[in-house]
């Protein structure tokens, strides 16, 4: 194997993987801060503000606390499985990120072409489904090993919930695959570019099924039964503390990010800008230097403006300031930034923007809805989502067949 091949096939992916694995926990810690902030604002309160400016160091404090927290393994538990369970939860959650592309175009570092994804495999969607189906083991083992009634009942319930919603999840994806004719993530986005429309339009029902099933898969409100503290205390991780608990937590949020990424790629055009085939909207593609500060400024304004009790004006002001700064930067061409109108950067901007919206939806739901009861949750999955998603596959097939016949004749 030549040195070049080694760098391209082993070293660059390794660097990417290390970056992902090291940055992700930090990202999740801050996602959690944002979640607490958003929930707090929705609930007319202020959320963490003690540690650091506006609570910005809170995630660090939490992480340190979890790291040095005493780890209790219950007496009657199966120690091996008890330790294995959180690890078995984290691995599949992380490994799913391997096939998520967040931009289309590659960029160059030190003369080597770096792709904006770790790898793109032909069976990416299958891989994702397979990997996510492995996530169930952490739950079952955690519940079983704890030897506590709440844990075991919680584990049985959550695992049954997860397998139940994996079925509509798989069916919902199939509609997209029929349209794109591929199971590779990059191919699916490219197919959307060619079609000139995000697949959420032809696959609205599919997206609906996917989104609901994804919320249930990640155990979020209104399907957060595994940790329904009102009934089963904390479900399968009742007995967990310290870092092991943190891993369950990490896995849950990683899963949240992963399903949001998949939703973005499959239904919302991945890194494509809105209306990818409307030429006059080119600035959505190239104007990242203004759009990015606009978004960040608006977000910051909203986040920190709550202190005054008025969220909207600071949000607009923050967005305005950001946009102005971006415009000045672009105009003055400081440090040649504007010439960096790389498709990779712009694609990444759109991708993360969409993913953030999904994550916001998750938090928003958590702040709004009551929780389903277990039997209702199962009924929703089996009696509504599965028939609906199967019907979606059939209707999509029918539409493609009819369209093909019409085109073939005309």
């Amino acid at each position: 194997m030549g040195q070049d091949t080694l760098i391209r096939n082993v070293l660059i992916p390794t660097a990417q993987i290390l970056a992902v694995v090291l940055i992700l926990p930090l990202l999740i810690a801050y996602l959690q801060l944002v979640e607490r902030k958003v929930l707090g604002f929705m609930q007319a309160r202020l959320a963490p503000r003690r540690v650091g400016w506006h609570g910005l160091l809170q995630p660090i404090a939490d992480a340190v606390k979890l790291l040095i927290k005493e780890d209790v393994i219950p007496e009657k538990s199966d120690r091996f499985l008890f330790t294995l369970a959180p690890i078995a939860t984290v691995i599949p959650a992380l490994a799913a990120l391997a096939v998520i592309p967040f931009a289309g175009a590659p960029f160059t570092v030190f003369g080597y072409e770096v792709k904006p994804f770790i790898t793109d495999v032909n069976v990416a969607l299958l891989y994702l489904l397979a990997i996510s189906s492995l996530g169930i083991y952490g739950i079952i083992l955690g519940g079983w090993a704890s030897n506590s009634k709440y844990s075991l009942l919680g584990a049985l319930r959550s695992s049954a919930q997860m397998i139940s919603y994996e079925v509509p999840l798989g069916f919902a994806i199939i509609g997209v695959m029929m349209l794109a004719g591929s199971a590779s993530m990059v191919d699916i986005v490219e197919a959307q570019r060619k079609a000139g429309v995000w697949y959420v339009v032809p696959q609205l029902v599919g997206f609906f099924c996917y989104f609901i099933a994804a919320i249930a898969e990640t155990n979020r409100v209104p399907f957060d039964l595994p940790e329904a503290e009102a009934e089963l205390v904390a479900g399968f991780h009742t007995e967990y503390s310290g870092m092991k608990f943190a891993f369950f937590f990490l896995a849950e949020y990683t899963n949240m990010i992963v399903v949001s990424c998949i939703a973005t790629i499959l239904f919302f055009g991945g890194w494509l800008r809105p209306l990818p085939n409307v030429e006059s909207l080119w600035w959505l593609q190239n104007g990242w230097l203004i759009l990015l500060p606009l978004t960040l400024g608006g977000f910051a304004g909203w986040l920190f403006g709550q202190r005054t009790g008025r969220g909207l004006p600071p949000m607009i002001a923050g967005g305005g300031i950001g946009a102005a700064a971006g415009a000045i930067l672009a105009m003055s061409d400081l440090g040649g930034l504007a010439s960096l109108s790389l498709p990779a950067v712009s694609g990444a901007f759109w991708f993360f923007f969409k993913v953030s919206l999904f994550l916001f939806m998750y938090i928003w739901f958590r702040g709004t809805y009551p929780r389903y009861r277990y039997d209702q949750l199962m009924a929703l999955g089996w009696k509504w989502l599965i028939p609906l998603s199967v019907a979606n596959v059939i209707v999509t097939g029918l539409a493609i067949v009819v369209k093909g016949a019409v085109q073939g004749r005309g």
Partner: protein
Amino acid sequence: MFRTEEMDINMGPQHPSTHGVLRLVLNLDGEEIVDVRPVIGYLHRGVEKLSEHRTYAMIEPLTDRLDYVAAISENLGYCGAVEKLMGLQVPPRAQSIRVILAELQRIASHLLWLGTHALDLGAMTVFFYTFRERELILDLFEQFCGARLTYNAMRIGGLLEDVPPGWTDRVRHFLSIFPSRQKEYEDLLTVNRIWLGRTQGVGVLSREDAVALGTSGPTLRGSGVDYDVRKSQPYSSYDQFDFDVPLGTKGDTYDRYLVRMEEMRQSCRIIQQALDRLPEGEVRAKVPKYIKPPAGEVYHVVESPRGEQGFYIVSKGSEMPYRMRFRSPSFVNLQALPMMCKGRLIADVVAIIGSIDIVLGDVDR
């Protein structure tokens, strides 16, 4: 025959959703509830016995701590009982202010119930909204009597002091904003399909059972029994106000929820009327310095937010009661729990406990 062995699960006393220190021993078959056994007494303080060694004035702070979520109602009932025993006439202004306080308390108590009930069923945000509005009421109480939870707001024979200046305007202000806030809770819950699924048909208590078990308050009215102490045995000038008694039809958790929501609206109506027709004058009748009711016994009931709150006093003519007995609605309503839970799932237990709105201070006394 496949043995799904029945399993006992403890819910409480340290459990996130049993409202204080209630312990339930659930007998499960799989996830289905075979039997529920409430274990109470974790908060028993012997208030009834304590009362036998207190003068009548000194008992009122104890009543605050019975149903600490609705202390005004307890104060009102206790003072009413002693007044009845002594044959005291409470001045009309004091009566009206008592009604305003009691109805504000009803709203505050129902808000707390709504918040925790919704929290139990997973809707965490409603909890913060109801507490935000409950704070407004607690502010009113603080301005009136100086305390926010254990008010000790009344005195035998009337009130300690008249309302502070500007207080009625603040109550009016509260009444002006509250309905729109209540609309928000309803938007979040009343029509929400998840909420409907969690509450409709859950914990059904039939009319007959409700009466047979001696339940009262919204638990009884949710089952469609028209019984409200404020109507049937009016006290403290309740007969002068115009209000409806909301009744449920099916007796499920959802009906009890709707009854309480409607009660809050009716309470606003009562407060509005009381404010509009607030009589002038004294707020405290002439009361001897040392209260020594004549020998005899009295039973006085009021409609607390939880139901029929009874006070039974036996006096031997001394300055302390000979025997004191509280009929607490939470205790009686709790007896309906096993009947409502049988055959349901664990998650329903949470909903049902929430819907009967017990306060452990009231249950254990």
